[in-house]
């Protein structure tokens, strides 16, 4: 095959292949990823090469992962080092088990500690400053905010996305307020991926607490408490 340099389609396909193969430097990788977001042909080429080269991963022998790795993943995924909590095994069990989850001070304590650690950079000095009226909602144990929540003087709440958020068609994000000292959060309604503005007075006299976002079945939690994982949180 000759003249590859002159043919942009050929060049794009080989770039996709090099991306999947892994030979590109960091900047080139980022360029390909950025272009793939806009370009379905490049995306299709990447998928094609991924499927064709995937069997090579089997050439590498498995190695037992370090024993601490699971705890670390668990702590990042849901902010606790406690054993996994099954949130519900059947519809009938859901309310009781979820409630026991929220009453589990250990789990909530760790989750909140993780969240507060994650948003520490956005908080003013804790001793003298009033609670901030703007807070970043960040994934547990991570620092990149996903939503920005701001509370108006009138108690309204607006939440807007800082990055593109995608939710599966059969799921919805739901907003919650967990007041400090309380064990169970109060539902604030669904949170579309494009953001939400909640009515005047929603947060009047709320005191310090946390805004949480959980992943729920379409239409939101039917139990009045989160039934899915809490994805993001921030203090107010």
């Amino acid at each position, binding site marked *: *095959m000759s003249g*590859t340099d002159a043919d942009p389609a050929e060049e794009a*396909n*080989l770039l996709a*292949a*090099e991306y999947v*193969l*892994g*030979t*590109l*430097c*960091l900047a080139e*990788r980022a360029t390909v990823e950025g272009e793939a977001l806009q370009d379905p042909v490049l995306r299709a080429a990447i*998928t094609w090469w*991924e*499927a*064709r*080269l*995937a*069997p*090579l*991963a*089997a*050439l*590498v*022998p*498995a*190695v*037992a*992962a*370090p024993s601490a*790795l*699971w705890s*670390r*993943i668990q702590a*990042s*995924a*849901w902010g606790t080092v406690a054993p*996994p*909590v*099954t*949130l519900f095994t059947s519809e009938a069990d859901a309310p009781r088990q979820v409630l026991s989850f929220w009453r589990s001070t250990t789990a909530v304590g760790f989750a909140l500690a993780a969240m507060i650690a994650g948003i520490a950079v956005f908080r003013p000095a804790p001793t003298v400053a009033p609670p901030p009226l703007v807070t970043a909602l960040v*994934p547990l144990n991570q620092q990149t905010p996903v939503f920005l929540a701001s509370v108006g003087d009138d108690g309204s709440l607006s939440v807007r996305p800082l990055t593109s958020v*995608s*939710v*599966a068609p059969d*799921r919805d994000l739901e907003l919650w307020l967990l007041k400090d000292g309380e064990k169970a959060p109060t539902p604030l309604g669904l949170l579309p991926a494009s953001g939400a503005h909640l009515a005047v007075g929603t947060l009047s006299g709320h005191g310090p607490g946390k805004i949480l976002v959980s*992943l729920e*079945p379409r239409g939101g939690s039917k139990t009045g408490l989160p*039934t*899915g*994982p809490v*994805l993001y949180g921030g203090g107010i």
Partner: protein
Amino acid sequence: MAYATTEDAGDLLAELLARCAAGDRAAFRSLYDLQSARLYGIALRLTRQPALAADAVHDALLQVWQRSSQFDPSRGHAEAWLAGLLRYRAIDLLRRRGREEYGLEPAEEADRDPDPLDRLAASEQAEALRRCLEELDEHQRRVVLLAFVDGLSHSELATSLKSPLGTVKSWVRRALIGLRRCLEA
């Protein structure tokens, strides 16, 4: 037959991923138990640094938990999807933080099989890939394996194979063109 077993494993993983998307933590734990050694092995081989490999598996599995709803069983095998997330994460971390003591030459290490392609699984995809890799010349086959399995970039390939960067880039491109022509046939 090995192929059937791979398919069954794929079905189980796909089911676990669907349960993860519904927030089922026990399913996520099962997924971890089934896949962590495979993924860690891949990451360790790519990065050659246990801490970096653990970071890559951590980040990739966190992505799996948060994005399990994005897995589409109709578009590929669950194992390939997981390994793909892991490889990209490991390569990004590697490129960002650098190799700790680059200069070691993975191509000459003792753990390299004389014919590692024998270890490819007996699936149709793997058979086709093995046949097409065997059609490449030795340089071309070597750069594909060193890049995919050992995570060598263009410039690392040049250092490792003591060849000019331009030559190495050309081996890579010719290998990819040859593979594509063979795999499309």
